[in-house]
């Protein structure tokens, strides 16, 4: 069953086209990695999918339902969650209140228990009365993932969860993302970090200058010469 089907998605800021007719599909329970250098249009693509950015054209279907014209809150309530690149937490909310607030997105589904989130990220339990604004970068990233997860989504979009994090924290995140996937949630991971990409994704799409440059299985992507050149840019060649 296809969880997400994006067809000819175009995102533009005025005259500047950020995403150029992107098409991709994710099977239910599958994990897809969207690779690409800075400015390739990865973030624009995921934000347009969840409705945070307006779409110039194209169609987005979620489990067969056309969600192209829906606003973000309606999309999120359908079970399509986003962990945004800048986390977008509420600084004055405690960890616990953040998670409670996010259960709103469960809509008619049964939300996940806070315990299941604390089980995934034990440090959040210790910090549950602390304000989100006072957490470390890694803890904030965990909270952002927990916030998306607590609504019991069917597809989780993660936009560069590794950015600015120490390697120790990164390993915790990789483990957590793997566990999320094992629980049956489909994942679309936007990454620049090959280590995370390799350990999470089965399939890979490479984006360059807003266009889909290559797609295929993860193992091939790593070896793929041209893909690597696109990914690391011409300076490396």
């Amino acid at each position: 069953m296809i969880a997400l089907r994006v067809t000819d998605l175009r995102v533009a800021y005025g005259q500047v086209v950020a995403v150029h007719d992107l098409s991709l599909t994710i099977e239910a329970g599958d994990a897809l990695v969207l690779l690409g250098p800075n400015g390739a249009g990865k973030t624009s693509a995921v934000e347009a999918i969840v409705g945070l950015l307006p779409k110039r054209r194209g169609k987005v279907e979620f489990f067969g339902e056309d969600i192209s014209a829906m606003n973000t809150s309606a999309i999120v309530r359908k079970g399509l969650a986003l962990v945004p690149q800048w986390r977008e937490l509420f600084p004055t909310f405690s960890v616990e209140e953040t998670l409670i607030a996010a259960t709103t997105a469960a809509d008619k589904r049964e939300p996940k228990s806070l315990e299941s989130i604390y089980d995934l990220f034990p440090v959040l339990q210790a910090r549950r009365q602390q304000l989100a604004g006072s957490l470390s970068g890694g803890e904030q990233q965990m909270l952002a993932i927990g916030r998306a997860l607590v609504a019991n989504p069917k597809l989780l979009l993660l936009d560069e969860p590794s950015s600015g994090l120490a390697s120790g924290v990164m390993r915790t995140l990789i483990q957590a993302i793997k566990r999320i996937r094992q629980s049956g949630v489909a994942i679309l991971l936007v990454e620049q970090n090959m280590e995370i990409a390799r350990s999470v994704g089965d399939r890979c799409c490479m984006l360059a200058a807003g266009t889909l440059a290559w797609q295929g299985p993860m193992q091939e992507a790593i070896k793929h010469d041209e893909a690597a050149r696109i990914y690391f840019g011409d300076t490396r060649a």
Partner: protein
Amino acid sequence: MLAELGNILIAGIKFGAIYALAALGLVVIHKATKTVNFAHGAFAMLGAFGSFLIVVHWQGPYWLAYLLVPILIGIIAALIEFLILRPLRRADMFTVVIATVFLGIALGEAFRLIYNTELLAVPGMFVGAPFVVSRVFVTKETLWVIAGALVTALACVMLFHHGKIGRGMRAMASNVRGAQLCGYSVDRVYMFAWFLGGALAGLTGVFVAPITGVSVELSIAVITAGFVAGVIGGFDSLRGAILGGLLLGVVESLAAAYVSSAMKNCVSFILLFFVLMWRPEGLFPERVARRV
């Protein structure tokens, strides 16, 4: 002399409680939607007018005014959000603020056209002898206004800080994108914030009607006091709005008694000026957390 001071302080707290309620409605809307609603005073005037209609014109019971008016003004405010401000949501802040300014003027003038009197008088909820404690006088109405306005204000703070709907407004205030990702709809939260702000304005009107009567000038008085009290309190803090309102009421009353009544308005602007000069974040800002 001490009794005189007591009487003056009580008068100040009475006005302050109403200012607090007025400021609270402004701050609720501003906090959730980042819009300063300059039509707030006109909403309060409509509330006072509603109170006049129910209590004087239709001879209804006073509790009905306290119950119905906030709901009705809340609905009017939510409708205005839906019809006028929603299409302007992508416009810049200035456009939206100007829209509320002219909305306020339009409501005032409409009222003037329909009700052509100098002032509509509304009786107090309570009449009768005041309580006297060592030559300090407290009328039942004063007690009711102080207690009623402050209890409502605190209930509103509780709703905002602990209720489910309040959580949505605070999330929206804190981070619009984050709130949407949590499943909160901008449209619904904005509409509810306007409903709540309108309801508070309406309630302010019901409380203030017996104290000042119903006139177009009321809308100016409410918006001015509410705005100054809000800024004193930090404009983003509900508790600050309440404390700011009380402080403004007491300072005005003291200035009127010991300097001159003409100083009353002057003092509120002097207070505003000094707060903006020395503590632009307000005297009672919310806990400030590190930016995420």
